[in-house]
């Protein structure tokens, strides 16, 4: 009888047996690959660079603001030579000046082509008692490169002020002398510019002693880029990738940084994004440059799943703005901005 009881008990409790599935062990849940959301879009941020960031205004003391526009100006008085008793030729140099323009090299990082639409030279004289047929010789030099140009004009009481350049200023204050070679001279980014004013020997000899006592010059380079203009401006976003930010967003999956670039500056640009580590070394993600032509454009930078592991070292962003001129040749003005309104699209979730 006792055995019968025991059998009933054992059989009864066997009913409570269950199959343990160790694949669902809740004490050993791995959350290392847990992510929040499989796809996210978010505003990444807005930032801008101003014209005085793009052009290193602080490195070029000769830059002035004229009617809101940036103009590189070298001005002064030319040295007027005394009359000699003999003239060696039909023309005689009556004034000259060597202008140091080395600071212009600081306008942009690296090499650049300073193709401007309206570089010009003005001369203001006090000629009152003579009329002088003159020639202004302009020589520019940068390292081994040399460029030169010249213009003929008459200095007289009627036209004591001369404007030499490719574009007519359309003002009564100056007599316009067209010279289309000047942009080529400026284009070599000259370190020195030599001006030499020659006059007809006979006219100069016959002129009264005080016929020309003062001659002021101004080499004016309005920063209005011509189509051939080419420069690179590197703008850094320091510590763009906080360590936490990278852990959450850029530890897996793929990411797309995209958005609109609004450009008030008179450049077209190709925007290259370079992601750097804390030692300023590129992390090795190739992001094709994005063209922004005209006042606005879209940019897209895609960090692929294959490249994402490189983001673990990411710290800074360099935006390399490859600048080119436009056909219109508008002036660069103080306060103009290029605004980056960027968004982030993340596939593969946010690590938590």
């Amino acid at each position, binding site marked *: 009888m006792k055995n019968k009881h025991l059998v009933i008990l054992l059989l009864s409790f066997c009913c409570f047996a269950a199959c343990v599935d160790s694949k669902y*062990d809740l004490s050993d*849940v791995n959350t290392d690959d847990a992510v*929040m*959301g499989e796809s996210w879009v978010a*505003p990444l941020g807005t930032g801008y660079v101003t014209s005085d*960031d793009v052009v290193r205004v602080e490195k070029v003391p000769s830059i002035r603001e004229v009617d809101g526009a940036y103009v590189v100006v070298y001005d002064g008085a030319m040295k007027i030579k005394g009359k000699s008793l003999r003239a060696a030729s039909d023309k005689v140099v009556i004034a000259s000046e060597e202008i140091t323009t080395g600071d212009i090299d600081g306008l942009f990082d690296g090499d650049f082509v300073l193709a401007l639409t309206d570089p010009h030279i003005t001369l203001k004289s006090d000629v009152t008692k003579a009329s002088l047929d003159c020639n202004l010789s302009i020589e520019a030099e940068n390292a081994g490169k040399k460029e030169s140009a010249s213009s003929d004009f008459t200095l007289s009481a009627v036209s004591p002020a001369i404007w030499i350049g490719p574009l007519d200023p359309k003002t009564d204050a100056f007599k316009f002398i067209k010279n289309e070679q000047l942009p080529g001279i400026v284009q070599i980014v000259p370190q020195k510019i030599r001006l030499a004013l020659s006059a007809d020997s006979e006219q100069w000899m016959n002129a009264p002693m005080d016929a020309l006592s003062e001659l002021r010059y101004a080499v004016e380079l309005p920063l209005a880029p011509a189509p051939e203009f080419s420069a690179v401006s590197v703008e850094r976003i*320091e510590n763009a990738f906080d360590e*936490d930010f990278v852990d959450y967003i850029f530890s897996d999956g793929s990411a797309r940084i995209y958005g609109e670039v609004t450009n008030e500056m008179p450049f077209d640009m190709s925007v290259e994004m370079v992601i750097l580590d804390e030692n300023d070394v590129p992390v090795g993600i190739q992001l094709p440059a994005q063209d922004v032509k005209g006042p606005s454009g879209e940019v897209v930078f895609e960090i692929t799943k294959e490249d994402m592991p490189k983001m673990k070292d990411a710290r800074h962003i360099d935006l390399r703005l490859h600048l080119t001129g436009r056909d219109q040749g508008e002036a660069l003005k103080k306060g103009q901005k290029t605004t980056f309104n*960027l*968004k982030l699209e993340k596939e593969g979730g946010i690590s938590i």
Partner: protein
Amino acid sequence: MNTVYNMYKRGLCALCLLATVGMSLSAQQIRTSYFMRSSTARTTMNPAYRPERGYVSIPVLGAVGASYGTNGIAVDNFIYPKNGETVTFMDNSVNTESFLNGLKDENQVNVDLGTQVLSGGWYAGKGFWTVDVSVKGLANIRAPKTLFEFMKKGNGSQSTYDIRNIQAYAEAYLETGVGYSRPVTDKLTVGGKVKLLWGVGAMDATIDQIYAEMGETSWKVTSTGTLQTNMKGLVPEMEVDEQGRDYYNSFDFDSPGLSGFGLGVGLGATYQLTENIMLSAAVLDLGFISWSKGGSTVGKLDGTFDFDGFDLAIGENNGDIPSMGDQFDAIKEDFENLLHFKKGGESGSTTRLRSTINIGGEYRLLENKLGIGLLSSTRLYSPKAYTELTLSGNYRPVKWFEATLSYSFIHSKFKTYGIALNFSPSWINFFIGSDYMLTKVTPQCLPVSGNAMNLYMGVSVPLKSFARE
């Protein structure tokens, strides 16, 4: 920022544990035993029921029960095996659509725990008296599917989320009850039970709404909700947010005591329709607990998060713009504010008991050795009621042993069954049973794919008093 994500991580784990590891069930009752005549447990399911003999329970072990039930979700909705590891639904290997397809629009997990500290029952004349002192606790948590959609999908394919009614509720109380049943006629027996309830503590945290508009140009998220705790000895620890507002950061526990008082009643009746058919009905736990103002904590959630992108410090002239790291930290703090319950004050509250309605019918044959019963049991959880329909077959081959097999139509889903055993030799009465047998369980004994489980056991010493037929 780690804080917010870790908070979510912890919250997620807690949710998973509750939803999967889940606990809970439908009141301290095991429906499989409803028609077992030798069981003392069934007196808790219908005050009109009377066991064959009086009894005195073994302290604490008189009736121990735990139950867990959901409205359809299970462990394998949230936990997945992956290459020999166990991962959560947040793992990037878990398919979003298949995960979401396994959820309900509203997902709720209910847990009940309880034990009779002391209990006894005896016959006095035609009447049967019961007294008991019990400790009971319940918890439920609910979360809408939209929350999981947000967590799993992100905002890539959907930019607006309206997440409503996330709630966590728990309460615990002591119950002292006196019951009495008595035949009114040859066929009708009625019974009732009156309870005094002593509230230990209650907590209700509700996020009424999280509304998120998360586009590619801006994110705007608002949250509203309330927090109410009533528990003596529960001391909130405050923090101050960047706007100078106090919010509840955590709680300490010190010097517990009683925080509320309540009353409850249960009513039942049985009716012998024919010699073989008995009908029965009961309403259990009609009542309330009034929680006192002292020891209460009231919080209000009214968070706002606005984000339209970082200020990008491009170039050199950006000295006024904080670093990206600082901006990221600030945004994390703003986001955390969405879930900060701000200090409210003190307030009493009243909660109603989770009532249960049982309606049963039983057919007995072979001189009562075999019985077939059908029980409808409706548990009134907040905000919804959950009904279970249980078919049971009862067999009593010998006087000291009775067994019942059952099937619950709504939660079993052909994955599980119920069983109850009652051993009642002359010197002891031992009962064990479950409405949802664990066919496949985790190493922690939780059903892998089942959405309900319970276990009930009790040990008592039979008395010599018998029912007068």
